[in-house]
């Protein structure tokens, strides 16, 4: 019962979706203010999702069953990550050995759900988006995992979220060390790509390929993809806080840290144009991976 509650309501699906939708509003509002516009009201993203629930669901001719199934898998795994992270922050006893690896695996599934769903929609523009999304996943996973490895090395090989938090509570946040700050910068760029936000939104480019991977989705499945995005917008910054910035985990401190990371994401979004997919690939496998490797080497030497 308790497990179901923590998965479905707090800190799992319902809480993380609401927090993510609200964070999405902050993003839209700040973007609008930066462009000298007024911006949407606070309930805008909730309204969008409720509206999508009332629209017709169109299944294109020639699509497979995975078209309607895959959005659910993305949302299920994203909210599972939210539940694991929230519980390890709230009650450290709930955390289990190896949950860092579980979280890393589950964070890939939303991207895979997008790939499977869009490629089963039999749309040529969607397949262009799929190929870009696949390249993007391959590009950002390598530096992201290297950044996580550097944290694990700093904690003496612990692959448990609560031990990582304990280690930071005793020795101070990883962000304050050289390897920690390098790994943090790397993973900031990686979560930008994971969230599919500008400059790494080539797979959903509205202006070129008409929302790419989401082109055939309407109604409920589209709402679920929006919710998945929202849950990830809550989950990924919280994951970074747990890994790098976990000394003080009282509620006001967490809120402040979350808003700081959100502000960095919005800042990157509003100051950069969209990168072509080959530029993004070169960027992630070149400089970003080198920085992540440097972070791992420094972590081995304990700096």
């Amino acid at each position, binding site marked *: 019962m308790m497990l179901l509650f923590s998965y479905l309501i707090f800190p799992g699906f319902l809480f993380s979706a609401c927090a993510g939708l609200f964070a999405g509003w902050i993003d839209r509002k700040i973007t609008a203010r930066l*462009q*000298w516009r007024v911006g949407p009201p606070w309930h*805008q993203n909730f309204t969008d999702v409720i509206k999508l629930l*009332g629209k017709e669901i169109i299944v294109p001719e020639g699509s497979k069953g995975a078209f309607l199934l895959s959005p659910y898998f993305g949302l299920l795994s994203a909210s599972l990550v939210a539940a694991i992270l929230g519980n390890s922050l709230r009650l450290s006893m709930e955390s289990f050995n190896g949950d860092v690896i579980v979280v890393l695996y589950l964070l890939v599934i939303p991207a895979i759900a997008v790939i499977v769903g869009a490629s089963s929609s039999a749309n040529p523009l969607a397949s262009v988006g799929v190929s870009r999304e696949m390249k993007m996943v391959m590009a950002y996973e390598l530096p992201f995992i290297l950044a996580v490895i550097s944290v694990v090395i700093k904690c003496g090989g612990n692959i448990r979220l609560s031990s990582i938090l304990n280690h930071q509570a005793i020795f101070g946040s990883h962000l304050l060390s050289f390897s920690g700050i390098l790994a943090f910068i790397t993973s900031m760029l990686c979560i930008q790509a994971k969230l599919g936000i500008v400059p790494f939104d080539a797979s959903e480019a509205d202006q070129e*390929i008409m929302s790419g991977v989401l082109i055939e989705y309407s109604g409920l499945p589209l709402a679920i993809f929006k919710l998945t995005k929202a849950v990830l917008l809550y989950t990924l910054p919280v994951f970074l806080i747990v890994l790098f910035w976990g000394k003080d985990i009282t509620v006001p401190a967490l809120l402040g840290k979350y808003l700081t990371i959100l502000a960095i994401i919005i800042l990157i979004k509003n100051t950069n144009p969209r990168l072509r997919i080959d530029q993004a690939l070169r960027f992630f496998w070149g400089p970003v991976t080198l920085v992540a490797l440097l972070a791992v080497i420094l972590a081995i030497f304990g700096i």
Partner: protein
Amino acid sequence: MGIKLKALTRSIWVFHVSNGSCNNCDIETLDCFTPRFDVERFGIQLVGSVRHADVILIAGAMNRKSVPRMKQIYVQAPKPCLVVACGICACSQHMFKDSYNVVEPLDKILPVDLYIPGCPPKPEAIISGIVKLVAKIRSKG
């Protein structure tokens, strides 16, 4: 009136079709999204795919080439979906009434919910048209 319909009036996603228009209406439509008018205040967004659309905004007189395509686009849109004729060409064919290439007015082909006259209509006119559209949805629901 259901909560979903009420949400529809607060978050209208527009799919913008240029249907052989002279581009003036398109420019004025895009002006609505600029800082001066900013219709994102009301949750109005331009979308790239017709599957996400709540409103199909059509500019230009329908010609022989665009009629079958326009019908196809309307079938592809998820219902409830509204059709807005933007500009006098889309409303009434205007000066192309006797043209060899223009066969039927738009409202003989698709169920048009809102007419915004003008050549081109000002952004203010488009916004006031959208207000009327929202009132129409509310009175129906």
